[in-house]
């Protein structure tokens, strides 16, 4: 039993804090004010690459490396710290993004080399993306309708994809499509669609309530040819069968980190609210104290849930229940904090130009991405009471 930070991680967190304070927070506020994502050619991204960020955790020698050491626990704590400064900017960071996990889970050695290789030590910013969600299928991923038709030497894709992070600037997008909707999940395949592929287009950067610093992009695939060599797990029927669950598994491994980001955002609300209350002589109010106490308590409990799920992941123990628990609880705690923070700021929050108000808009997304709170409860209930699929 040890609940302390080791020195190495502490040093990494302190570096994130420096970067967060000097660059991430101001850039996030600026993007929010301007109402548009940081452009792909923003010098900040160049600086990140020069700092050795924006890389893949794939070591190039078989298995995935430990994300710079420290495993999932470190990932979770770093994610919390990044989100503390600006979660939108953190998602805008160059790197393979959500596309990395399916490549690691399903890609051949050659495919990893081809798609993740450029992220090993990039000389300029690169992005990857993942597109699962469609206008008609979000939580119910089995219902995706994007079609993959077999043609000579590959597949032709047709369909629409929604809200994919960094998609318009990505070198490639891992796209999920079905070879036959009648097959249900069995028909799902994952394709790496490269930038400039004919038929990949209509990129539309969505206007969001918050998290404006990164692009959430919808796009279409029209007769978009993808060669066989870009089909993940193409020659391995059993791996292919698991393509769908592989995608879901990749979500599983990231849930504690997403939950931790919510904790980080909630912590930022807490700190801002305390600073405001102090500056305005509100700290003596019992009601204000109660709100702050509750914020901190719920966030602290959430943090432990994230770390516990991460710890189980590092030990390669079953952690579905714990991961979903963290993801169900932390975003709600962070939203609660933001709601209370707005109350503490009162009309000042109503102006719409404070960090707390921005966080209030940013944080709602955390209960939606990578499985809504309801979906997390379904996963938990499967574990706890064997909830059958037809109810979930």
């Amino acid at each position, binding site marked *: 039993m040890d609940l302390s930070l080791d020195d190495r991680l502490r040093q990494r967190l302190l570096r994130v804090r420096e970067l967060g304070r000097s660059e991430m927070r101001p850039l996030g506020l600026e993007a929010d004010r301007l109402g548009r994502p940081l452009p792909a050619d923003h010098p900040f991204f160049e600086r990140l690459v020069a700092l050795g960020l924006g890389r893949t955790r794939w070591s190039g020698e078989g298995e995935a490396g430990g994300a710079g050491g420290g495993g999932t626990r470190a990932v979770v704590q770093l994610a919390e710290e990044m989100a503390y400064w600006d979660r939108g900017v953190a998602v805008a960071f160059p790197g393979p993004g959500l596309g990395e996990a399916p490549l690691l889970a399903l890609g051949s050695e050659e495919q990893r080399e081809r798609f993740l290789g450029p992220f090993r030590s990039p000389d300029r910013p690169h992005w990857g993306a993942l597109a699962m969600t469609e206008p008609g299928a979000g939580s119910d991923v089995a219902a995706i309708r994007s079609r993959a038709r077999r043609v000579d030497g590959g597949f032709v894709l047709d369909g629409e994809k929604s809200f994919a992070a960094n998609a318009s600037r990505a070198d490639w997008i891992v796209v999920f499509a079905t070879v036959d909707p009648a097959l249900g999940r069995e028909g799902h395949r994952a394709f790496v669609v490269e930038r400039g592929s004919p038929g990949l287009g209509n990129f539309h950067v969505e206007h969001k309530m918050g998290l404006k610093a990164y692009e959430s992009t919808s796009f279409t695939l029209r007769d978009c040819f993808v060669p066989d060599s870009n089909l993940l797990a193409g020659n391995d029927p059993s791996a292919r069968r698991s393509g769908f669950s592989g995608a879901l598994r990749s979500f599983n491994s990231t849930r504690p980190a997403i939950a931790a980001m919510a904790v980080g955002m909630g912590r930022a609300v807490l700190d801002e609210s305390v600073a405001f209350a102090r500056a305005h002589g509100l700290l003596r109010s019992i009601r204000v*104290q109660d709100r702050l106490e509750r914020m901190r308590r719920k966030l602290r409990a959430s943090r432990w849930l994230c770390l516990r799920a991460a710890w189980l992941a590092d030990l390669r123990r079953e952690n579905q229940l714990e991961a979903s628990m963290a993801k169900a609880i932390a975003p709600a705690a962070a939203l609660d904090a933001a709601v209370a923070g707005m109350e503490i700021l009162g009309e000042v929050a109503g102006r719409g130009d404070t960090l707390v108000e921005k966080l209030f808009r940013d944080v709602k997304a955390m209960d939606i991405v990578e499985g809504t709170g309801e979906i997390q409860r379904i996963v938990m209930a499967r574990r706890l009471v064997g909830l059958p699929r037809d109810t979930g």
Partner: protein
Amino acid sequence: MIDFELPTELALLRDTARAFAEGRLRPRERVSEAERGVGDELLRLHREIGLAGVGWPEALGGAGLGALAQALVREELAAADAGAALALDPLGAALDALRIFGGDEALERFAAPIVERRGARALLVYDAAPHVETHSGLARGTIAWVPADRLDLVVVLERERAYLVADALRFEARRGAGLRAAGASTLHIDGAPIVAEWVSTPGARAALAAARLEVAALLVGVARRAAEFSRAYALERVAFGRPIAHHQALAFQIADMAGAVEAARHLVIDAAWRIDSGLAADEACATAFVECVEASMFVAPRALQILGGHGFMQDHPVEKYLRDARALGLLAGGVDLSREDASRAIVASRGAIALAADDPLEGIEA
């Protein structure tokens, strides 16, 4: 490096406590409640297998284990019967208060006689108001409810001091809202000689923190048991053609109840780990207490609701879990004072609030 694995010693201890609780306490939870006690046989056994002395120093014949060990045992015992957990523990947080204020000498003088006589009990009472006045070495006043039918030593804790009374205590039997296995009475202190007194604000805070952590750990146990009982019931009970657990409205509640228990437990572990690591823990104990009261009042009523009308009947234990949980949360000064103490750290802090004792952001202006 974060590591939640219990050392083997503690895992074994927890398993021992669980086996004792499930095998011995749970089958007679209604009997203990009706008889307002656990009986000699259980007291002996509990002592014999080493559960009583987990936190006692070796000089008292205990194992000298820390706050985490005690929290684990308390959770397990309360997951069978929280009232019995109190009845079985001859010292409870009185041990911490004696140690904090008076050190080995106080333990030798006041705790040892309690430990040596089976059935003897000391209790820590937090008297914030205060309801008991002291004058010329005598204490006079009334504590409306203590979870006991008789006591051999009372540690009266206030904001800045603690004192001991042992004689001229009168116990007026009450039905008790819950925790009846420990007894329930109004304690009249009728000019009791003050046997010892210590004044120290930090000492009082630390003793109160220990009392809160004791209650918090018991609450985790009750809430866990209530959640678990109702989960099992929901898998058996059929309505509208399926187990009620498979109606999403209940499935989600069951998920939320499990989450609430887990979140509360982590704050107890957090606080206990801080104590055992020699870190500041008063705020963490207060925070854990508040969360555990909230969680238990979230979980236990829902557990009863899952049983519907059957939950309201005393054939099932969930109504008892609800009463026990409610009663527990009133101890150690109750939740409002705890919340107040938990917020003190926020008021006192200069800048950002660290969530963990060794948070890298502690004390940093945002």
